[in-house]
């Protein structure tokens, strides 16, 4: 305890550019998370609809795809992609990545990380979305069909607005998990907060004439960055949900079943 709270072990936070260095790394994590979230949601919806498709081969293929990706460890997927992804994919990524993206996201290496995050999370989110859609009463789709809406119209105007609303809490907790999982890309040598933390605590700061940054304190600090961001995210989503529930008269029950929605289901009860 003495060691933990010893002021000299925390001096690194206020000296030199250490704090800035860490926060810059953390920003890279948030940016990777933001990109991965957008693609995971879009791709997840496609997979969910594929799995619910009336065409048997489509739903079968989508089902196998989803079950394989969501049952493999994410770090396994990222590592494999980093080792085995064709170099042409990385080059293609470098060609299409917008110039205003930060430097850490310009290199083709980061593509393996983003692709891994999207493959895994889109599969998980597809299952959440499917559960949301299936939790709707069958009558909704049948009523929509009987008033003459085509299948795409039923989805667009009747099923998705209700089904997707129900899966918001579960999706938000999965996105919080995704945010934590961005630290895994440090394994494939992308300069984000974990790497910056290791650089700081490697003794480098003392070597260049500054104060030492002990590894325990540096990583507690990094942990706090994630706790604060993720806690704020979950509070925000809860507030939105309560508001939404008041507006819609409280018909939307959260979907139960997968890894992280447990928490939100408990909180909103």
């Amino acid at each position, binding site marked *: 305890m003495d060691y933990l709270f010893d002021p000299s072990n925390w001096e690194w936070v206020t000296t030199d550019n250490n704090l800035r260095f860490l926060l810059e790394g953390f920003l890279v994590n948030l940016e990777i998370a933001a990109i991965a979230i957008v693609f995971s949601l879009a791709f997840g919806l496609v997979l969910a609809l594929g799995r619910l498709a009336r065409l048997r081969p489509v739903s079968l293929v989508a089902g196998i795809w989803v079950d394989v990706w969501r049952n493999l460890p994410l*770090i396994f997927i990222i*590592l494999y992609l980093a080792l085995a992804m064709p170099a042409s994919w990385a080059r293609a990524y470098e060609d299409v990545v917008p110039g205003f993206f930060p430097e850490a996201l310009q290199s083709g290496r980061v593509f393996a990380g983003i692709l891994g995050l999207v493959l895994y999370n889109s599969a998980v989110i597809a299952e959440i979305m499917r559960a949301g859609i299936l939790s709707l009463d069958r009558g909704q789709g049948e009523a929509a069909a009987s008033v003459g809406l085509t299948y795409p119209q039923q989805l667009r105007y009747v099923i998705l607005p209700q089904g997707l609303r129900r899966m918001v809490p579960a999706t938000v907790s999965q996105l919080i998990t995704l945010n934590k999982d961005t630290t895994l890309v440090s394994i494939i040598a992308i300069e984000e907060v974990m790497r910056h933390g290791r650089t700081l605590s490697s003794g480098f700061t003392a070597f260049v004439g500054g104060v030492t940054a002990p590894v325990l304190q540096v990583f507690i600090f990094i942990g706090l960055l994630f*706790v604060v*961001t993720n806690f704020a995210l979950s509070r925000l989503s809860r507030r939105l949900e309560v508001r939404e529930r008041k507006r819609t008269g409280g018909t939307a029950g959260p979907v139960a079943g997968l890894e992280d929605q447990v928490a939100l289901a408990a909180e909103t009860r």
Partner: protein
Amino acid sequence: MAELWDVLSEHFSEFSSGFWVTIRLVAISFAIAMVVGTLVAALRVAPVKPLNWIGGVFVETFRNTPLLVLLFISFAGLRRAGIPIDAWVAATASLGLYTAAYVAEALRSGVFAVGKGQIEASLSLGLDYPRTLRYVVLPQAFRTVIPHLGSLTIAMIKNSAIVGVSLLALGDLLHQARLVNSRTFATDEVFFWAAVGYLILTGLATVAVRLLEARYAIRR
């Protein structure tokens, strides 16, 4: 195709030892997660405000911190601080406490599902609060949240791979796969067999949860 089987037969001992390390890692962490998770859930539903608060801080801290950060703190961090922590202790404690936060939340939702009437009935029969939890609330809460606990266990199997890429060289399945890969450079084949290993584990866990669910789960 022939090479696929060659990689497995030539390096079977590495793969199988990694497979068993992963199972051991998950089994120990699972025990920690269940015990600590139950205690924290009890804190969170206790009729004493400060206890609720302590439970809440535990859950929010461990649930919102990346597992990789927990591994760094518990291994490299504590060692540098002069506490000679064992790699197995660091790994199982990190994975166990991380999952315990989720287990606590799952159980808490299960406790709420039991209903106030039963708790009041039990208290009015003269059982004190710990006994009410032990004999009335928790047995039902566990059965309600079997599906949740099942998906947490599957998540834990997947998360155990993170230990394999951290500084703690325990030799789990992913760690062994990387080792074999660095010797053979047969990346596709090596990762194929590691994937098979993980899918066997998550698949078995899925089946086990379904059986438990059919036998014990209470639908509400």
